[in-house]
């Protein structure tokens, strides 16, 4: 096996490796629990390395194509056919950017879970499902095929629902999973119906081929609405967000961190549909405005609903909705300006801000959910009214929480500030009111996390507890490291990772050309 072979087949390997590992995990579990843990962590570390390896290639050499089942993986259109008929994995800057997030959060969540679910039953199944969640996310992000995206969306939704209900002895876990499953099923049917409408017209499923053929007919518009509604709901956009606090709050905390990344995979699908599948054929002003309105509603309703919460994870779930609003706002502004001359000056900056915020949010919201899990691990409660004084005994968790809270509130020098600054300034050019709302939401976010910090960590020592086990601290440390790194070097991150992702999303022609040539 040489490096070139590995690089050539890496898109397929990135999906296949955790898929095979998922089914091997219960078998290894029968023989040794330690071997199972070591196997899962080793697979996720290899996965992370593979994703970084492919990311380096994509950011250096451009789009990476992989045709499943073809003798030559770069042969997207077979000689005897006029269009792509096989499943094509198309990895551009945006796809690999999302894959980096999914792989990193999954690794941190798995390390954290080693101690976190130690006392639970069915750990073999837990890790199998965790790997399947990763498969679902990566499949959605790397595929260049609409039907394939639907299949991975289903894999992701079913695995997530099973993990939300993992602690099935709690009634609310089963209820949260049930709601998630019902709402996901309906969203999936919307997606499937939209794909059927497109396939009926164009005989195509490949995204690039569809993008080149799409005419924005009435049927295309119906498909567009179904896709936007389904993916906006799956990413938790207001007013279709109601399932989010129900599901996020009852899942094991490591899984909640992964649910954040899973929601972002749907956000990615939403952006992919708008920018790549429909692109310039869209009525950009209308759809851009729709995305911006979703963003504003999500930001404001999310944060204001977080403030009265007494359940620490419900509170954080509402903040996840609020932060998704920033991403929708940033990228929505980019979509709104896509064909206008302003795009090259501040439209692309808005998109960079929104996309940078995706990775920042995955890291700090993942970290915050892990700290909430650490508190639950010791106190066995999510009720903030029953907490207090934990800073005396859980010093490392307190520090991790402070870093996560400052980052989400957009306090310099943490990473949240850099992405929010890009969004504030670019959105201001479209309308100052957008920036004012975004800044107000940041202030309310800080206020909300001051409440959590005061309630949980400050005050006299009420509970006689110890710090959480080292593997849980290690999981939190992985995400904290990324937060600090991205906070200190935002220029490097934007230039080398975020800008190529934004450029890839905006450049529909390059995406089409990579598959169809010409």
């Amino acid at each position, binding site marked *: 096996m040489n490096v070139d072979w590995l690089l050539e087949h890496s898109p397929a390997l990135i999906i296949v490796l955790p898929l095979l590992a998922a089914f091997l995990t219960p078998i290894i579990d029968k023989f040794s629990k330690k071997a199972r843990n070591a196997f899962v962590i080793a697979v996720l570390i290899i996965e992370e390395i593979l994703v970084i390896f492919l990311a380096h290639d994509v950011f250096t050499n451009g789009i990476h194509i992989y045709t499943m089942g073809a003798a030559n993986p770069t042969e997207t259109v077979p000689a005897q056919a006029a269009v792509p008929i096989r499943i094509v994995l198309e990895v551009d800057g945006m796809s690999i950017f999302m894959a980096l997030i999914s792989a990193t959060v999954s690794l941190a969540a798995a390390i954290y879970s080693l101690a976190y679910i130690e006392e639970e039953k069915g750990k073999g199944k837990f890790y199998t499902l965790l790997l399947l969640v990763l498969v679902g996310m990566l499949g959605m992000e790397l595929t260049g095929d609409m039907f394939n995206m639907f299949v991975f969306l289903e894999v992701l939704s079913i695995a997530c629902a099973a993990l939300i209900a993992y602690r099935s002895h709690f009634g609310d876990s089963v209820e949260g999973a049930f709601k998630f499953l*019902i709402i996901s099923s309906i969203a999936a049917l919307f997606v499937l119906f939209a794909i059927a409408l497109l396939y009926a017209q164009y005989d195509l499923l490949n995204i690039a081929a569809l993008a080149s053929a799409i005419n924005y007919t009435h049927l295309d518009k*119906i498909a567009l609405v179904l896709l*936007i*509604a389904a993916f906006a709901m799956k990413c938790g956009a207001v007013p279709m967000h109601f399932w989010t606090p129900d599901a996020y709050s009852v899942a094991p905390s490591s899984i909640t961190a992964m649910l954040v990344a899973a929601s972002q995979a749907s956000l990615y699908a939403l952006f992919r549909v708008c920018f790549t599948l429909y692109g310039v054929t869209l009525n950009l002003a209308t759809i851009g405005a729709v995305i911006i309105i979703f963003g504003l509603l999500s930001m404001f309703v999310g944060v204001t609903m977080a403030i009265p919460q007494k359940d620490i994870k419900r509170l954080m779930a509402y903040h996840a909705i609020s932060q998704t609003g920033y991403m929708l706002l940033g990228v929505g502004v980019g979509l709104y300006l896509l064909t206008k001359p302003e795009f090259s000056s501040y439209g692309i900056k808005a998109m960079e801000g929104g996309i940078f915020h995706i990775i920042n949010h995955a890291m700090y919201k993942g970290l915050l959910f892990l700290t909430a899990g650490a508190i639950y691990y010791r106190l066995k409660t999510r009720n903030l009214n029953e907490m207090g004084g934990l800073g005396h005994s859980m010093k490392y968790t307190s520090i991790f929480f402070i870093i996560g809270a400052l980052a989400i509130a957009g306090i310099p020098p943490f990473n949240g500030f850099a992405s929010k600054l890009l969004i504030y300034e670019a959105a201001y050019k479209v309308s100052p009111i957008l920036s004012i709302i975004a800044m107000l939401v940041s202030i309310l976010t800080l206020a909300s996390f001051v409440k959590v910090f005061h309630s949980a960590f400050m*005050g*006299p020592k009420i509970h006689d507890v110890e710090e959480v086990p080292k593997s849980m601290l290690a999981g939190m440390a992985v995400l904290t490291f990324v937060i600090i790194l991205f906070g200190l070097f935002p*220029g490097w991150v934007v230039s080398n990772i975020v800008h190529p992702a934004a450029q890839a999303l905006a450049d529909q022609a390059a995406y089409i050309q990579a598959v169809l040539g010409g």
Partner: protein
Amino acid sequence: MLRTTGGYWDPVLWIIGFIVIAIIAYIIRGFGRKDYKGGEQLKPYLSGVEEPSKEEVHIRAGNIYWGFMEALKGYYDAMMKIHTGIINDYIAWFVGISALLFIAVFLVEVI
């Protein structure tokens, strides 16, 4: 250094500035009275009433921002009303928003 629409953001420069300001603040603090440490002056003045224990006065999460929520009572009442926790309502919102999107997309063409 991160280039933004209106300028730039350099966290390293910010940290250096923060440290310089912190040092200046520490030096100014050094000019304060050395004897102002401990004693009666650090206790809260409660008109002669004995100070309750810290456990008793620790403000719980349910009481924080009570005034904020009271001021926005109308907004919160409406918000709580739509957050029913019932899956039927979730789906109704989903379908309703989809219908609104249909209207938005098609109406623009007509106008």
